[in-house]
């Protein structure tokens, strides 16, 4: 694995984000030194439980952190330029056109009082020169492309008149309108039932084939990751705890948390078990974060050291690393034996 010659399409480097506490409460560390990157043509997954910071990461990647969030360290770079350092107008110019987001919960992602057509037309405001009719036609074509039958009629519908699956398709269509280089799909299937979920995953896989940008899928659902992604970052308590190619993640998970996640996936169960496996304990408080490994209180392998000393990043194989004291490089992998093969923040490109 060689070091990249040019900067990746989009990357977060050592990104730390904190939320200011209210009335003197200590700030909450939502992201701690997170480094991820995505290249054109690849699909990167970000998985984690509720509250692990993955939505904050998605918001940071598109420059839409809420007002009480502060970037305490690190950068987000798009094509090598520091996205967060740009003035708001510059960021606005990138949004929608170069980086687009398909939001979770399409129920509320669209304005309830404007038709789908009006909104999809507005979203193409970067093409103001083309006139509303042309933009509206593009919107209709995009809706048809994401598999909405009778797209011309749907343009005149209000969001609440569509089914959940249709709304999610429309949200993806909206994100693809400007053929952005980076598409961030924030929980693309969370609000849907299983059949709809399968359809949306199918749609995203189809889009992969003729879409040449980078796709970042943010989800809590390992199944989605397995179906869609090339590479996966596992987020826990605001940190990347494991990075791996999707096959390695499933077959050779290095971090105990990843192993626990896979064990809890109902799709992976073979026999009848009762009760369903769970990870005991809860996500730790992040204000302030614990001194040792954040997962230690829930970890079956934890030793005394895990509670006191923050674990290092251990490269366990080509393109795979974990933040764990117990992780060991796989002996048979010559590339993984050298711990200097991965940089300190764990971004493996």
């Amino acid at each position, binding site marked *: 694995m060689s070091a990249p010659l040019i900067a990746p399409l989009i990357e977060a480097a050592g990104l730390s984000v904190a939320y200011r506490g209210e009335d003197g409460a200590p700030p909450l560390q939502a992201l701690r030194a997170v480094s991820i990157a995505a290249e054109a043509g690849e699909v990167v997954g970000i998985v984690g439980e509720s509250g692990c910071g993955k939505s904050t990461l998605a918001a940071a990647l*598109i420059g*839409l952190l809420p007002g009480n969030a502060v970037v305490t360290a690190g950068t987000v770079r798009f094509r090598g330029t520091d996205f967060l350092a740009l003035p708001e107008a510059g960021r*606005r*110019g*990138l*949004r*929608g*056109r170069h980086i*687009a*987001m398909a*939001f979770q*919960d399409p129920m*509320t*992602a*669209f*304005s*309830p*009082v*404007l038709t789908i057509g009006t*909104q999809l037309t*507005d*979203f193409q*405001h*970067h093409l103001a020169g083309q006139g509303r009719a042309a933009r509206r036609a593009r919107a209709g074509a995009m809706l048809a492309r994401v598999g909405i039958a009778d797209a011309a009629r749907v343009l005149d519908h*209000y969001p*609440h*008149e569509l089914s959940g699956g249709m709304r999610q398709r429309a949200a993806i269509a*909206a994100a693809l309108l400007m053929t952005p280089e980076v598409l961030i799909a924030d929980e693309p299937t969370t609000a849907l039932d299983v059949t709809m979920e399968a359809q949306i995953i199918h749609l995203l896989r189809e889009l992969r084939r003729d879409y040449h940008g980078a796709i970042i899928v943010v989800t809590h659902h390992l199944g989605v990751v397995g179906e869609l992604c090339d590479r996966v970052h596992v987020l826990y308590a605001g940190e990347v705890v494991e990075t791996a190619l999707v096959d390695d993640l499933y077959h050779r998970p290095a971090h105990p948390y990843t192993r626990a996640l896979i064990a809890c996936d109902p799709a992976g169960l073979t026999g009848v078990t009762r009760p369903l496996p769970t990870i005991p304990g809860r996500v730790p408080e992040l204000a302030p974060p614990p001194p040792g490994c954040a997962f230690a209180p829930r970890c079956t392998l934890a030793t005394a050291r895990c509670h006191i000393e923050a674990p290092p990043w251990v490269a366990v194989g080509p393109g795979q690393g974990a933040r764990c004291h117990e992780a060991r490089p796989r002996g048979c992998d010559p590339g993984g034996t050298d711990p200097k093969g991965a940089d300190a923040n764990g971004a493996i490109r």
Partner: protein
Amino acid sequence: MLSYAIRRVLLAFLILFVVMLAMYGMVFLVPGDPASVALGPRATPELKALLTARMGLDQPVAVQIWNFFRNAAAGDLGFDVWSRRPVLEVILEVFPRTLVLGLVALGWAVGLGVALGCLAVVWRGRPVDRLLGVLSVGMIAVPSFVVALYSLVIFSVWLGWLPAIGAGERGDFWGQARAVVLPAFAVGIGWVGYTARLVRAAMLEVMGASHIRTARAFGLPERIVVTKYALRVAIIPAIAIIAVGLGGILSSAVFVETVFSRPGIGTLITGAVQKRNYPVVMGTVLFMTAFYLLVVTLADLLIARLDPRVRDVLRG
């Protein structure tokens, strides 16, 4: 939608019916017959008998109530024994003046209020926002007739810029326009603060909604996000509350019209109460209540049109 409209109108009529019954009942609950109360010390037996017959008070109560409702339904609110004209005619003669005052007041107040509310949202948490907050409450708190009296003293008596009394001659547009400035200022000022607060609160709630985040994520300019995406949603609850508040506009118009001796519903009813002119008071109260219910009902229907979600719930 249609069945909802019918239901709303029926409810308005039911409320109007209860109001009429209460008003009619009140007259009979109070000791002393209305004719001698209305005539006061001038009452001679002949005059009393005449008035009693005119007002239909010599009939049995049940017949009176029936007549009252029948006449009211036919648009006949009774006969004004003082001016010897039908009450409805007297009311309709002055009502347009009050309507103009109310609309001008509501117009400038809501326009400025929405603008200030949006301003407070754009500068939320900053000193401007806090100043606007205190200013709004201040404007709401000050009674409109004190504002009317103060502006009368300052702009008419001391500075002599604007007329102190009247509503302007018929046909003289500029005279009428000049005459409406101070009353509309006094009636409207509270509504500036009220609308500003309302819009600010509704906008702040909407600005946190995820569809606003969507609009931002597509890089829409903040101006369009605020005016098209946020205000369109935030204005809907504001319409309902402003319509309900029209009752308040009418109330302050009563005082303000008296201060400026401006012909209108307020001066009409104040004079009638002072003379204890029953038919005119009852007729005016009924008329204004009906008008108010009409506005509130229309506002409800307007909201149903503006909000596609409500529209569909009602259709389904």
